[in-house]
């Protein structure tokens, strides 16, 4: 299975980007093109997820997966925080910021997993897109709580409510949820006329987007002076632990194997869009060099190349 994964064009384009940046090539994807692809991918998975749920209806599985996803996003930061302060020797602020990243999720990792798994006959349920959207933000609250707990309330002009507003109106959450609802409302028939764009082109766009992510991840890794060997190890250990928790949880609540694997990938993945921006605003004393190097430079490539296969295998073993 790992061989199939590694010879899929989607992954090969990621590897190409990674190697190009490592060789210090000047290859680069214009920022606007990268953002355009990411908007396309989120709209596409959102609407396709909504159409599938419109077909299958709201099931008990959906509710169970959603609750478990929420719980994972809230709780994983506590595990991560403990490891990051004890093993990783990070300060409270830095540990809280990193923990928030690992509790939240990476949309691209999920999309890549969905494609790879589907290509191997393991298509996750449509509602997993909703679970993805639900898992994006709770971790931010846990991470901030962990970082600030016990401290004299810092003189910050971010009241809780403005922070919450920013978290819930975050562009990617709005787009994912909005497109999901559009898929629900439009249903199979309404989706048909726009299907050519959102379905046919999907895998190809994902290739080019992963090319970009490969460049970005490797450039981040090259810049990673700030992180110690311990932190580098944790950037591989944390996804293994979190993903395993996710797979066990999914199996226990009785999800199908494919959705369980997807939940494992979600738990293992670390945010590198919504959470870094939120941390930069709410925890400016935390060092972006640390959390970006770990989540983007190490965990993301690890998950895309190995993690997906690992959690799929685990889900099949337990399922």
């Amino acid at each position: 299975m790992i061989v199939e994964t590694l010879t899929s064009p989607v992954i090969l384009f990621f590897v190409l980007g990674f190697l190009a940046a490592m060789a210090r090539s000047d290859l680069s994807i214009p920022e606007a093109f990268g953002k355009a692809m990411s908007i396309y991918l989120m709209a596409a998975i959102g609407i396709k997820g909504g159409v599938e749920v419109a077909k299958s209806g709201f099931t008990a599985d959906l509710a169970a997966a959603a609750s478990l996803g929420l719980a994972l996003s809230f709780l994983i930061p506590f595990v991560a925080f403990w490891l990051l302060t004890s093993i990783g020797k990070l300060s409270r602020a830095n540990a809280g910021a990193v923990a928030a990243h690992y509790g939240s999720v990476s949309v691209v990792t999920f999309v890549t997993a969905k494609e790879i798994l589907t290509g191997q006959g393991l298509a996750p349920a449509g509602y997993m897109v909703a679970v993805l959207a639900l898992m994006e933000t709770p971790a931010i609250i846990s991470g901030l709580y962990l970082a600030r707990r016990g401290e004299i309330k810092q003189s910050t002009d971010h009241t809780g409510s403005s922070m919450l507003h920013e978290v819930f109106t975050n562009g990617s959450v709005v787009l994912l949820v909005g497109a999901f609802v559009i898929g629900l409302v439009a249903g199979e028939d309404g989706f048909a006329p726009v299907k050519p764009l959102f379905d046919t082109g999907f895998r190809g766009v994902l290739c080019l987007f992963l090319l970009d992510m490969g460049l970005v991840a490797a450039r981040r890794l090259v810049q990673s002076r700030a992180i110690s060997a311990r932190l580098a190890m944790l950037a591989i250990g944390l996804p293994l632990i979190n993903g395993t928790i996710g797979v066990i949880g999914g199996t226990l609540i009785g999800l199908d194997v494919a959705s369980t694997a997807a939940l494992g990938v979600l738990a293992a993945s670390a945010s590198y869009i919504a959470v870094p921006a939120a941390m930069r605003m709410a925890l400016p004393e935390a060092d972006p060099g640390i959390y970006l190097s770990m989540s983007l430079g190490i965990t993301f490539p690890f998950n895309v190349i190995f993690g997906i296969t690992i959690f799929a295998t685990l889900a099949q073993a337990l399922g």
Partner: protein
Amino acid sequence: MIETISRKRIEILMDTPLVPRLIRYVKDADISGWSLIHIDSGGGRNGEWRHDDVTGAAAKTILLAVANETKAQALIDRIAPILESHGLLLLVGDVEVVRGERF
């Protein structure tokens, strides 16, 4: 010949996620406006960054604000304490403006 007045030209380089907060400070200092200048990449003691990073995590921006001495000082006083912790860069220069009463 047109008469001109001296004003302060303030540039603040910051991480893009901090922009809304800094705009709040500009408004608090009663400064009449601001403009955000696009920067593509840069480097400093904390390594290099480039704007064309789809995560947006490392993007930086320059906020440009023109104000009279008093308002400029109010803004500087507000920002100075967080310069180090928030990784800001603050430059203040002199410019002559026409229509000076608006600043």
